[in-house]
């Protein structure tokens, strides 16, 4: 146990030192970046015939054994190719690109559905291209079809062969003209529906953003251009509002077969082209998550307007629900003398 505390000490010392590194904060957007990606729906369910469901339950009760990849699922009583749904699942894929410079460029874009190994699709599994096209700064949306062979391969690669659900990774590449493309990944979760009554996850939605001057009650009003207007160097509290029902409750099954009901963690990431946040980024810790019913616990972040201006700062809010659900909101703020 003392060795662990020693390790904590070493890391603390390193972290304290790293604070002096002078790296740019993560929230500051100065060049082209992928800020978010969402899939609609974020979760797919596969209906399982009752006899298959029964066999799987018996197999699990007997003690499922296996390793993450490979093996004949039919032998193990899991899905076999002919039992696996022979259809491709349609999804709507969106990506949020940000650029600190004003940019109207468009970039070639490609999306694959695959089993992930590191940053690459596994070489020994199907990795079909499910969407191609171009994207630009801001939000871009494409329709994609996830074929069944990619679903089947992903289920096979899962630790439990998909019994508790599995992830199909959507791997995107954006060619920004650099030596290497920008790569991002997004999980599309697939759940076998044994009982026929599973409620799939959905994406949360940011309803509104409030900007208030720090220590004042009244929010900052919108100006004639429909944007928040603040003074140079002023401090403001920014508060994203989400619909209360977006904090969904869902069930999981433990290894003992017990059904647990859980609640989503909603976290918000913040990014801007100028100004400073007092938190480096949104945390995934539960007590930092947004709770519309408890404003005191809400991720109330202070944003300080830049001192040089006038300027228009763009602020992005990206909310994730911890289960693949994602949404964002873009805000332009006028910073005046």
């Amino acid at each position, binding site marked *: 146990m003392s060795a662990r*505390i020693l390790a904590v000490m070493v890391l603390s010392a390193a972290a304290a030192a790293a604070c002096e590194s002078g790296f740019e904060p993560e929230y500051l957007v100065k060049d082209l*970046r992928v800020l978010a990606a969402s899939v609609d729906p974020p979760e797919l369910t596969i209906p399982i015939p009752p006899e298959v469901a029964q066999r799987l339950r018996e197999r699990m009760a007997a003690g499922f054994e296996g390793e993450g990849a490979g093996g004949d699922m039919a032998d193990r009583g899991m899905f076999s190719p002919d039992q696996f749904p022979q259809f491709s699942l349609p999804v709507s894929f969106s990506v949020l690109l940000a650029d600190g410079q004003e940019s109207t460029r468009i970039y070639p874009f490609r999306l694959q559905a695959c089993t992930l190994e590191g940053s690459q699709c596994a070489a020994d599994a199907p990795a079909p291209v499910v969407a191609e096209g171009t994207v630009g700064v801001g939000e871009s949306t494409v329709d994609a079809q996830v074929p069944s062979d990619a679903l089947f391969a992903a289920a096979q690669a899962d*630790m439990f062969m998909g019994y*508790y659900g599995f992830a199909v990774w959507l791997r995107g590449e954006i060619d920004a003209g650099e030596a290497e493309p920008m790569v*991002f*990944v997004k999980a599309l979760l697939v759940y076998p529906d044994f009982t026929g009554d599973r409620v799939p996850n959905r994406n949360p939605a940011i309803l509104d953003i409030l900007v208030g001057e720090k220590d004042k009650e009244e929010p900052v009003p919108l100006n004639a251009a429909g944007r928040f207007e603040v003074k140079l160097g002023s401090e403001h509290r920014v508060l994203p509002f989400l619909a209360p029902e977006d904090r969904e409750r869902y069930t999981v099954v433990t290894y003992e077969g017990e059904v647990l009901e859980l609640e989503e963690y909603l976290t918000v990431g913040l990014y801007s082209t100028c100004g400073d946040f007092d938190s480096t980024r949104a945390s995934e810790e539960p007590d930092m998550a947004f709770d519309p019913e408890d404003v005191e616990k809400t991720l109330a972040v202070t944003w300080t307007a830049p001192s040089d201006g006038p300027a228009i700062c763009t602020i992005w809010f990206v909310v994730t629900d*911890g289960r693949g659900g994602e949404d964002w909101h873009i805000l332009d703020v006028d910073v005046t003398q």
Partner: protein
Amino acid sequence: MSSKAIAGLAALALLMPGAAVLAQESGAEEPKAPVVIPPVLRSFVNAVYPADLAKEGVEGAVFMLVEIDDTGKVVKVEVQKTEGGDAFTQPAVDAVGQFVFDPALVDGVPMGVRIGYTYRFKVEKKEVKREPGQVVDGAVKEMGVGLPVIGAEVALMEIRLKTTTDAKGKFKFSNVPPGEYSAVVTHAEYKRLETKFSVQADKTLEADLLLEPLIENPYETVVRGKKEESVVTRYVLEQRALETVPGTFGDPVRVIETLPGVARSPYGVGMLVIRGAMPQSSRAFIDGVDIPLLYHFLAGPSVLNPNLIDTIEYYPGNFPVRYGGAIAGIVNVNPKKDRVDGLGGEVDINLLNASGYVESPIGEKGSFRAGVRRSYVDLVILAALEAAGETGTTVAPVYYDYQADFSYNLSDNDRLEIFYLGSMDSLALVSTAEQENDPDIDLTAVTQFNRLVGSWTHVGNGWSLDVRPYFGWDGVTMETANITMDGDIYQVVSRQELRVDLADRLKWLLGLEGGYGWADFTGNIPMWNDYYMPAQDVVGSHQSQVDVMPLLLEESYGGVSTYTELAWTPWDALKLIPGFRFDLWIHPGGTVPMWDPRLIVRYQVLESLALKGGVGKFSQAPDPQFTDEKYGNPDLTAQWAMHYSGGAEVRLFETVDVDLLGFYDDWHDLTRFTRESGQVENGRPLLADNGGWGRSYGMELMVKYLPTDYFYGWIAYTLSRSELAGGGGFGGGGHDDEDHGAGGSSEDELSLSPFDQTHILSAVGSVKLGRGWETGLRLRLVSGSPETPIVGSFYMADNQRYSPITGARDSERKPMFFQLDFRVEKAWTFETWVLSAYLDVQNVTNQANTEFITWDYRFRDSWNVPGIPILPSFGVNGRF
């Protein structure tokens, strides 16, 4: 009949070119001449009265011309005439040749002169009516520290009685007639002492004499003996070297870092990394009692006051059967066992901590020693921050330790001892005024341990028995933003060792140890969820794999060990030591048996050359968190290693010891966390297994100049390679495997251990300059630890983080580590105490050694996090 030589100064003549002659008796008128002061006899030496002539009562005189230089030293004696017999001549010349004068002065300037001198031998004819003799009882001790001076000669000049101090520095004259005597005390390592004894009738004279050392040496005498022969390699460090190595701030245990086989740990944290193995693969002991921490946090000193330390044993491998529970190396700190002779103590105050120590005899048979230390480096750091005008928060260690030892000789063959040791370490957040109460920073970490050790040793005729029960309590508290843990571990252990000389060339050791412990932990800590969320096992994606949950752990465990060893010397040059150890570890989920046969061979080829070798099995039970049902796997088996080593010890020129050793350590069944490896067992992810393995091999060289009163030093060099296989996650400290995706790396694939350091060079030297000055340097040159390069990154949209894309594993290294440390000390020796002031500077050249490489959030920019900068510590030490 006694005789007594009487010498007198008969005439004095000055023979100086151009100088007027001073004729004090003639009264001649003196012209205007320089003022001349004749030489004055300062140190008289008795001549040896020729025995035959003394017996016959013959008296005599020797007339000499004595030439004295301008320092008062006699440089030439020329005999003019001898009366009474030629036998008087040489003794007179010998004695006068040793006279010391205050030199003659001419107008205040010392000048060489030649004088006439007559040495007369007179026999005391009168019968001395002697009173009944008295006893002169005394002790000779070293000035300052009060250590007994053994083998000092004490002489009563007038009666020509001499004696020598014993092992306790004591001397005794019996039947000394009352009177005034000139006593002279001499010893090769001390300045000559001349004093007066006044012996009175009907009264014993007790005389305590203090000798001033020629070279101030407040330390115990360095024993230069042959190395212990029952092990392959055991490096033993003597106390003087333990306390004055530069860069160690006077801490003996830190000196281990300069020995072969010990890898450097980042920030001098003090993890025991031996031959590149994980820190938890080695163990530390104090007098054979297991301790969890050898050093205080963040480059702090060891947990035991240096004054309590006798020697430190360090075994890089092939350690003897009396040590178990480790597959790499052992460090055992031996406290002092000798009886305290007198009241003594020490106070040390430096930039980082203050300590105190006291020792005292208790009656004729008992001894008591106690020490305490407290740090204040957190205050120093805060002051430094504020002085530099910095704002911010950092972490600083706070520590203290305390020890007490009581021993008592029940009889000549029985010794009882009670020893208590306690230590506490914590982290303090040090914030300047502007940063106080920062809600973003919340960290508490405290660890402490206590040991109460009893010991009874009985020495019989050709055998000895040592019984050692002890009680231990370890506590840990950790608190961050939402994680808390508070726990205690108690243990009761007893160890018995029987040693028997079965025959002249056959010695036998039998040991038995048993213990019982229980752990009690509460809090809220991250634990693996009891359910599965897809995509967790890949790259730690959107939903956390762990959740903070209430912890309630109450667990008992136990162990039994037995070991035996034969030391057989079939002929003088050859020694064979076969041994066997059995351990049984009992935990709530099962038992772990371990069997360890070992063999050591030593062959003394020549007096100055010995060959040695060893082979053995070394087992270690899995750590409790690995066998815990919630965190680990109760079905784990023991980790084990095979050690093979062979080498030679050579003594060169009677002053240099060279120790060269080649080794190969093979590690098997290493425990590792496997939650992220994708393995499933009994319907749930396998949390831990014995799937790790590895090896370490290389060469260790130690060239040591045997300590003298003036100098000690050594060069230690290790060339080695250590490798691990099995995908990482070893003991919670192995390298991460995130670049290898869902299944982890191949189990057949060896990669460098995170503690692999190909070259480790340490050079230490310290020299006494005289007049209380000592200075030294320590140099360390160490290969950087392995580094897997980061060649890019990709963005994980589900948790809004970038993940690195790595290149070939361990294909690069951090820059080489270089550090030069310096120490200088000045000691002032007073009659009953010694005052020292010292300056100990780590990293004199302020080398910015890289300890970690940190990256920006998307792995485009990196920064080499430097280690400890130049770190001086000034201290004052008072010792009596």
